[in-house]
């Protein structure tokens, strides 16, 4: 389950009005979330939640569900 706070952070960074995120949604499924923009999304999430991911944790992420779990484990 993707929290509204995480969803809004991603939408704002990608300039999207709305998008239905599922746990297994991949970055490549979301309009504008390409390999270059990826880091901006990660930085926005870190800033919003006041957390810092380890490099390897970001590398291992496979979908939004895993990003949500990682955020939950840090806050």
């Amino acid at each position, binding site marked *: 389950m993707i929290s509204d706070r995480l969803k809004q952070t991603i939408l704002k960074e990608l300039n999207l009005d709305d998008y239905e995120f599922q746990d297994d949604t991949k970055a490549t499924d979301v309009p504008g979330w*390409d*390999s*270059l923009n*990826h*880091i*901006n999304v*990660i*930085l926005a999430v870190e800033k919003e939640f006041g957390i810092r991911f380890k*490099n*390897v944790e*970001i*590398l*291992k992420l496979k979908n939004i569900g895993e990003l949500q779990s990682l955020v939950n484990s840090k806050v």
Partner: protein
Amino acid sequence: MFKYLDFQKLNSILQYDQYDPLYFTTILFFFLFLIVVAVYRLLSPYKNIRVAFLILFSAYFYYKAAGNFLTILFGTAIINYLLGLGLNKLSGIKRKLFFIFGLLFNIGLLGYFKYTNFFLQNISSLFEYNYGGLNIILPIGISFYVFKSISYLIEINLENIEPEKNILNFILYITFFANVLAGPIDRANYFLENTKEKYFLTKQQIGTAVFLIVLGLLKKVVIADYIGLNFVDRVFDAPERFTGVENLIAVYGYTLQIYCDFSGYSDMAIGLALLLGFRLMQNFNSPYKATSVADFWRRWHISLSSWLLDYLFKPMQIKFRNLRIYGNALALTITFLICGLWHGANWTFIFWGGLHAFYMVVGLFLKRPKEKLYKKLSLSNTWILKAAQIFITFHLIAFAWIFFRVKNFDYARVMLEQIFSNFQSEVFPQFVSGFVIVFVLIVLGYLVHFLPEKIEFFIKDIIVKIPLPAKAFILAAGIWIAAQFKFADLQPFLYFQF
């Protein structure tokens, strides 16, 4: 009965001869491949035996291309198999050190064979000493199988995959004849799954395989080899002897040649593997239809670009993330310089990589202003914008190919001087009448490339639907047409040198 057997002929089939390798484009290869498919089908219920059989054929295939370097290929496979198992048993700092050791082994192997002389010669030239270099020969395909090994170790280290327990399956992953010489650089998890599956081919798979093999053969032998030998090579070898217009056509010709050569090889590799039940990854997707250089890299040599993206660009991008857009720019620059160096130990390749890095970085900084401008001019999502983007991207890529192809920077300088200051457009009709077939093939090649995808799917669909004997006829016809265009000297695939 033995007196009827020509033992000398048999000997030449089995022996390594550097001038007579067993490339996909030879009749002998197709003959042997049909036997391999038939035997593999018979052995298919016995998974270890069928894999061992493919390893044996792959060893023979590689030996015919590289001789004794076969030992390096198998040595690399066995060592990486053990490294994978070892890595999985360790944790903490020991795991980290073992992983670094594994990476250094593979990078060291590639570095020794590919870059030692380049390094020594550049160092010696700093001291104004002309050093001839060591006698090191590059084992064919090493850049490809070392990259496969590295991806395997990284994926185990990230705990994305478990190491393969069956040594035969892993050896086949590294040595598989279809992709050992020039890719696609397949990922271990997808390939290894195929070794464990039941061997069964659908009508769709057989049709797709025949389509890809014939398409690849025609791309390579009819277009790439013909325009290469008859025109492109001549101009690139002595650009000063040709006018600007001929130099420009040679650049367009080489842009088509390298695509048809490498994607033709990849199509054949994917098609051949598919007939044995192995689904190799897609390597090309109409790259000159790209609307930006970033888009080009999502369509060109996809197995390498995705490797570089996952294992080089992303880790650096994450590490430099506090620098935001500058971090992206830095990671892009390093990635593309390494991409250039991967293609060959020569400054022209590094320059080619640097040029692509420059395109990508400029594209990165211009992305937002461009979007705003298109919106203001109401150009977003219009066909005019798309056509202009394709035209500009194509010419940026073609310009970079000059440096990829030339022997040294002097040749590139002469070519550009001829194009920009000695164009002589009036020579064009003479070129067309003097090189009719070359001209027709270049125009035809680009026309086919820019055709809508629907037509490609339509033709593939027809081949899928027709009965098996008709498929066999198409395959035979493709081989026959290719044989008519074939030259006395066997033309190696361009990407074998990397």
